[in-house]
């Protein structure tokens, strides 16, 4: 892509091809001899990381699409079946779902790098705008992908986002109908989102080709922001940049694998494990983390149309960045003021993201407005002003000069560090206040679970006892519709033999048919059958239980959670704490109390529960001491029952957890070795260039 290549393949067959289609020469000039500035730092490896992530998302996505059913009644179940029954389906799904988050994480780093080093400036304006287009396409793709599992958050996220377009005067309503294909979000919506979700990544790939083309015409920017002048300023792309990118990708994969294998639900929302229900809005609709800053901007403006305009402007404004910032010096390395404001801007974005996840009330709304003003002020006031008043430090003559100087005295960005720390401190203080303010339910106490941590395994005894508690108590009202009897004999489960599972199944009566006479009939269960539900449909379940249908328990430990709050959610990333759901379920089972505390009113037909949100639960106290007999001598107490049945329900929600963590360990060992190899190879390759 940088002019005609003089590359001549030695193989005659390739020479024949090259004369007709000079594709090898194109590859050779673009990715082998292509000169890259020799002073690039590791922030420049994110381009390669993003290409890797795009390839990963397309690859896993295409395979997932082979197993997925885009229908409102079947989509949720088909995703569960992918995770449970498809070979390594859990891996594919985690790779794709976490991959979206990693993709956005990488793109944010990539964009901020461009912002810091002035990579949008002349002659790279078109390159930058193509990047903004890719980012917009990514946002659309990510949003539609999040709709496909058809959980509660999928459905309501789709409703909220498509309704944004209704704010457009005159044509808004017709646009929304066009998006829905009906009168509300429904099956036609899901179908078209699936189609578009499959299409857009290939458009992204197309724009990425343009992006790389523009990059190779203008040449890469670099940390010093001076264009390469002589051959001494550059190194050939291969092996120098290739090996450095490989090392960057390997390190990035470590982070990616941490999520895939150990914290697959950390970035997701528990509500999305509840199937979509058009009749119930979740109490708190939150988009995926990568949209949160823009969501905060949307909500901070009290007028609907103005809010929508502000949200879209926050992205579109990036297109005008090359002209808003007219400073001649590219890199913020040599711009003392721009550097400080850059870090303030980063803090503003992170805080907006935090606010986007908070309920829109009180101090959060005011803080949101202040930060929204700061966000736009950075682009519209700070950058244009700085380019006029700032005196930049002298820029080195050439890249090789910069490399040789190698920054003797590094002044630490004191001011910006102080600002970031102060912001983090106020965030911390604010979250303590809000934690105090949120009453309504108590936080469940933590438990010691056998399945927590990177080497966690299910306690077989607890699984077997939990199954007994489920069968004798819970199954009277709650279904377990995603679990088949055959699962009881699968590795990583309760450890029954195939014969035991078959015998267990034959205790159940399963409805089958129609037979030759056209009648439905009952037969004993087989291993391939699923646990039968206690009620024929949701309405029957609702009618028999005072208006509240007992939820299916297959996914309950993943579908329930509670807010951890700042700073705990940051610690959780390192400790791999994932057990909010089990802690909550175990707490609710033990949280019943006949004595209702002062100030809490419990309506007729409900019961007081310390840990249930709002305290009034429709389920009567399910467990009492001695209710279920245990054969293995474990104590027959409510605490023990609760713990056992919760362990069992964790297994029903994550039947492949042991395989996931085992494979995760192997992948980590491999990746660490691979990263070291890449690092030392890179050192060797670059030995002469520093």
């Amino acid at each position, binding site marked *: 892509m940088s002019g005609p290549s003089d590359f001549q393949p030695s193989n005659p067959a390739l020479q024949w091809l090259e004369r007709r289609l000079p594709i090898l020469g194109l590859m050779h000039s673009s990715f082998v001899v292509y000169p890259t500035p020799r002073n690039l730092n590791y922030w420049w490896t994110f381009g390669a990381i993003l290409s890797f992530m795009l390839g990963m998302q397309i690859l896993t996505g295409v395979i997932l699409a082979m197993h997925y059913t885009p229908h409102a009644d079947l989509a949720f179940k088909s995703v569960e079946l992918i995770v449970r029954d498809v070979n390594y389906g859990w891996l594919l799904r985690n790779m794709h779902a976490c991959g979206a988050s990693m993709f956005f994480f990488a793109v944010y780093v990539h964009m901020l790098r461009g912002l810091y080093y002035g990579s949008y400036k002349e002659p790279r304006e078109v390159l930058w705008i193509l990047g903004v287009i890719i980012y917009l396409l990514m946002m659309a793709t990510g949003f539609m992908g999040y709709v496909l599992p058809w959980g509660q958050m999928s459905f309501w996220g789709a409703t*909220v986002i498509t309704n944004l377009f209704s704010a457009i005067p005159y044509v808004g309503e017709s646009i929304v109908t066009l998006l829905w294909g009906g009168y*509300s979000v429904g099956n036609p919506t899901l179908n078209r989102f699936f189609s578009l979700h499959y299409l857009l990544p290939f458009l992204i790939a197309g724009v990425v080709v343009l992006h790389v083309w523009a990059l190779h015409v203008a040449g890469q920017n670099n940390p010093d922001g001076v264009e390469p002048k002589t051959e001494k300023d550059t190194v050939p792309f291969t092996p120098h940049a290739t090996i450095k990118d490989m090392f960057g990708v390997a390190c990035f994969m470590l982070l990616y694998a941490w999520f895939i294998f150990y914290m697959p639900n950390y970035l997701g929302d528990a509500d999305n494990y509840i199937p979509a229900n058009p009749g119930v809005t979740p109490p*708190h609709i939150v988009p995926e983390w990568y949209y949160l800053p823009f969501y905060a901007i949307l909500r901070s403006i009290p007028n609907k149309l103005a809010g929508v305009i502000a949200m879209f402007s926050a992205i579109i404004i990036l297109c005008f960045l090359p002209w808003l910032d007219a400073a001649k010096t590219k890199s913020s390395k040599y711009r003392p003021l721009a550097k400080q404001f850059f870090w303030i801007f980063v803090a503003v974005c992170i805080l907006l993201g935090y606010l986007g996840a908070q309920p829109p009330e009180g101090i959060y709304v005011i803080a949101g407005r202040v930060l929204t003003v700061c966000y736009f002020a950075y682009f519209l006031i700070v950058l244009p002003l700085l380019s006029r008043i700032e005196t930049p430090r002298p820029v080195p003559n050439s890249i090789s000069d910069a490399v040789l100087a190698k920054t003797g005295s590094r002044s630490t960005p004191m001011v910006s560090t102080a600002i970031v720390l102060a912001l983090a401190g106020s965030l911390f203080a604010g979250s303590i206040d809000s934690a105090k303010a949120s009453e309504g339910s108590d936080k469940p106490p933590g438990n010691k679970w056998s399945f927590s941590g990177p080497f966690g395994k299910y306690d077989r005894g607890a699984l077997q006892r939990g199954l007994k508690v489920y069968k004798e108590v819970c199954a009277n009202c709650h279904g377990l519709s995603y679990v088949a009897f055959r699962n009881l004999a699968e590795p990583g489960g309760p450890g029954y033999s195939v014969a035991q599972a078959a015998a267990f199944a034959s205790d159940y009566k399963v409805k089958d048919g129609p037979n030759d006479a056209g009648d439905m009939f009952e037969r004993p269960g087989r291993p391939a059958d699923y646990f039968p539900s206690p009620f024929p449909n949701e309405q029957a379940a609702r009618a028999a239980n005072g208006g509240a249908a007992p939820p299916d328990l297959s996914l309950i430990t993943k579908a329930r959670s509670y807010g951890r709050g700042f700073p705990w959610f940051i610690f959780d990333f390192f400790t791999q704490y994932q057990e909010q759901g089990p802690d909550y379920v175990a707490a609710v089972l033990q949280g019943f109390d006949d004595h209702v505390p002062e100030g809490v009113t419990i309506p007729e037909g409900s019961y007081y529960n310390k840990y249930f949100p709002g305290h009034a639960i429709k389920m009567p106290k399910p467990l009492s001491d001695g209710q279920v007999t245990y054969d293995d001598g474990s104590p027959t107490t409510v605490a023990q029952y609760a713990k056992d049945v919760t362990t069992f329900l964790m297994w029903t929600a994550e039947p492949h957890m042991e395989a996931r963590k085992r494979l995760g360990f192997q992948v980590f060992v491999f990746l660490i070795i691979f990263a070291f190899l890449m690092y030392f190879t890179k050192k060797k390759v670059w030995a002469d260039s520093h």
Partner: protein
Amino acid sequence: MNPDASTIAAGAPIEVDLSPVAEGQDIKVFWRGKPIYISHRTKKQIDEARAVNVASLPDPQSDEARVKSGHEQWLVVIGICTHLGCIPIAHEGNYDGFFCPCHGSQYDSSGRIRQGPAPANLPVPPYTFVSDTKIQIG
């Protein structure tokens, strides 16, 4: 990409029997995939809705214009928040009406927006009284 024929056909008018709905109760029916709230309002709720100075409302509309005369006790509204489409909860909020849990919009006992980010009142779907205890929506 507009709605197909079967979707349009499924959106035909529906009839709802009101006789089982006691005073102070409300029911939710689905029409065109949208929840429709049918409230049997109490005397207090009607009085509250009519006592308001209409001009002071964000989206001025009198209660009389939002119900059918002779059937003042029945409020029929599309239960979709005009902000971003969540479903408000009936009998909550400060105005004896609806409260949207998503972004905190509050509607009164006539389904009019009183507080929060929503720009407009809950829309009234097209409906007619077939008899005193039966309505046809659509």
